[in-house]
C-alpha cells in the first residue's frame, strides 16, 4: 500500500468510528460542532505565555473521546503526522526570546520556551478536538449540522464534495504514480520534470471528472443545494453536554485554574 493510500484508509477509519452507537455519537451534530468551534476559539484566545492555563482544557477532548469510546492511538497518530506544521511555526521561539519567564525548582524557563509549549499545546488541543468530533459524529453529519446552523450552503456542498472526491483523486494519483514506477524500474520516484507532467495530467483528469460529476448532478435535478436530511432533535443529554462545555470553557477562560489550584495547596 502506498503512503497516500494508507493515509486515506486512516481517514476513512476515523469516519467508521462514528457509525457506532455510543453516548457521544447520539449527541446532536450541531451541538458538537458548535462546542468544537467554541473550544477552538477559546484555545486560540490565550496569549503566548499561557501554556499552563491551557492544560485544563485538555479535559474536553478527553471527555468527549471517552464518551464516544474513541481509541487514542489513531488520534495520537494523526496528531504526530500533522505536528511538523506546528513545530515549524514554533521552532524559533526558544531561540528568539531568551528572557527568563518562570522558575520551576532550580530551573529557569525562558519566555521563548513557554511560547513554544503554548503553540504546541494549542495545536494539539484544537486538532484533537476536531479529530474527536469527526470520530464521534462522522463528516457528513458534521456538514449537515453546520448547514442547519446557518453555514452557507455552497460551502457545505464544497466540503461534502471535497471529502467524497478526495478519495477518488488520491486513488487516481496513486495509480498514476504506480504506472510510472512500473515502467521506470531504475528510478521509481518521479523526477521533478516527470512529476510536473503527472500533476498536469492529474489536473486535466480532475477537470474532466468534475465536468462528468456536474453533468450527473444536473441530470438528477441539482439546483445548487445539496439536501442532507439528518433527523435530529435536541435531547437532555445535548443540553447537559452544552452546559458542561460552556462551564469548562468559561472556567478556563475567566479563572486562572492552575494558579487557583496552587493557592489551594499552599496554606
Amino acid at each position, binding site marked *: 500500500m502506498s503512503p497516500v493510500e494508507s493515509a486515506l484508509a486512516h481517514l476513512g477509519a476515523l469516519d467508521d468510528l462514528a457509525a457506532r452507537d455510543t453516548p457521544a455519537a447520539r449527541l446532536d451534530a450541531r451541538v458538537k460542532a458548535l462546542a468544537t468551534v467554541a473550544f477552538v476559539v477559546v484555545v486560540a484566545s490565550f496569549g503566548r505565555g499561557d501554556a499552563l492555563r491551557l492544560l485544563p482544557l485538555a479535559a474536553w477532548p478527553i471527555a468527549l473521546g471517552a464518551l464516544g469510546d474513541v481509541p487514542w492511538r489513531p488520534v495520537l497518530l494523526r496528531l504526530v503526522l500533522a505536528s511538523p506544521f506546528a513545530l515549524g511555526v514554533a521552532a524559533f521561539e526558544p531561540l528568539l526570546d531568551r528572557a527568563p519567564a518562570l522558575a520551576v525548582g532550580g530551573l529557569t524557563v525562558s519566555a521563548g520556551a513557554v511560547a513554544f509549549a503554548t503553540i504546541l499545546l494549542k495545536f494539539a488541543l484544537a486538532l484533537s478536538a476536531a479529530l474527536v468530533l469527526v470520530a464521534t459524529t462522522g463528516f457528513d453529519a458534521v456538514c449537515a449540522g453546520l448547514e442547519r446552523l446557518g453555514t452557507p450552503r455552497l460551502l457545505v456542498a464544497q466540503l*461534502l464534495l471535497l471529502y*467524497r*472526491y478526495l478519495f477518488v483523486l488520491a486513488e487516481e494519483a496513486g495509480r498514476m504514480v504506480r504506472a510510472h514506477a512500473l515502467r521506470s524500474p531504475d528510478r521509481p520516484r518521479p523526477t521533478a520534470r516527470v512529476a510536473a507532467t503527472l500533476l498536469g495530467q492529474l489536473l486535466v483528469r480532475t477537470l474532466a*471528472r468534475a465536468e462528468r460529476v456536474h*453533468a450527473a448532478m444536473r441530470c*438528477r*435535478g441539482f439546483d445548487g443545494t*445539496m439536501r442532507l*436530511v439528518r433527523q435530529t432533535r435536541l435531547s437532555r443529554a445535548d443540553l447537559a453536554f452544552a452546559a458542561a462545555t460552556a462551564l469548562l470553557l468559561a472556567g478556563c477562560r475567566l479563572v486562572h485554574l492552575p494558579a487557583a489550584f496552587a493557592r489551594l495547596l499552599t496554606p
Partner: protein
Amino acid sequence: MSHHLVSVRDLRFAYPDGTPALDGVTFTLHHGEAVGLVGGNGAGKSTLLLHLAGVLRASSGEVRVGDWPVTPGTLREVRRSLGLVFQDPDDQLFMPTVEDDVAFGPRQLGLPEPEVEARVADALARVGATHLRRRPPHRLSGGEKRAAAIAAVLAMGPSVLVLDEPSSNLDPASRRALIAQLCAFEHTKIVASHDLDLVLDVCRRVLVLSGGKVVADGPSHEVLSDDELLAAARLERPLRLQACPRCGT
C-alpha cells in the same frame, strides 16, 4: 402523452475542437421498448446519450422525450422522465452515503420526506442493495457501486432508463445479476454497450451506430448475426450466436 416516448430527428453534433460526433441520427422509441445501442469506440454512443439527457446541445436536429422537446427550458421535465446511468459510478455517486445519494434526486424534486424514504427503500431493494444503505460510496466494490448508481436513478421514478456501458468492470456474477434486474424493470430502456451478449439478453431491438450515423436498426437477433454489417461497424457476433468452438456447430 405522445405515442413515441423518445424521438431523435436528424441530430448533428461536433465537439468544440471540431471533431464530428453525430452526423444526422434519427430514431424513435416506443413505450416499454428495450433498445441496445452498439458501435465501436468513438461511434458516438455516449455523445448520443448525453444529448438525450440534455447535457450536450445539438448543433442541429431535435430530441423529444415524452411530450417535451429537449431544450434548456424543459430540462427539469426531461430529467424527471429520463434517467441516465453514467459509465463510471464514481462520477455519479457524489453524496457521503449511498442512502443520501439515492435520496438526492427525489429531494431535488422537492418530494416530502416520507415519499423520499419510500423511494429510497424501493430503489435499493430493486437492485438488491438494501444492505449498502449507510455505506460511503468510496468503500464499495465495483458491482456494489454500479447497483447504487442504478438505484440512484431509479429513485427519480423515470419512465425511460438510459444506461452507458452498464456491465463494464463487473465480475460475471454481478453482470448476471445486472442482466436479471434490467430484464425485470418495466421501464423503456436504452442500453449502450460493447457487451453484445448483454444486449441480446436485455434488448429485442438494436441500433448500430457507426461514424455518427445509425447504420442499422432492427430486431436484435437479425442485426447481431449480420457479420458483414457488424464487421463494418467494428463489432462481431455475440458469443452466444457464434458456433461452438469445440464441435463447430
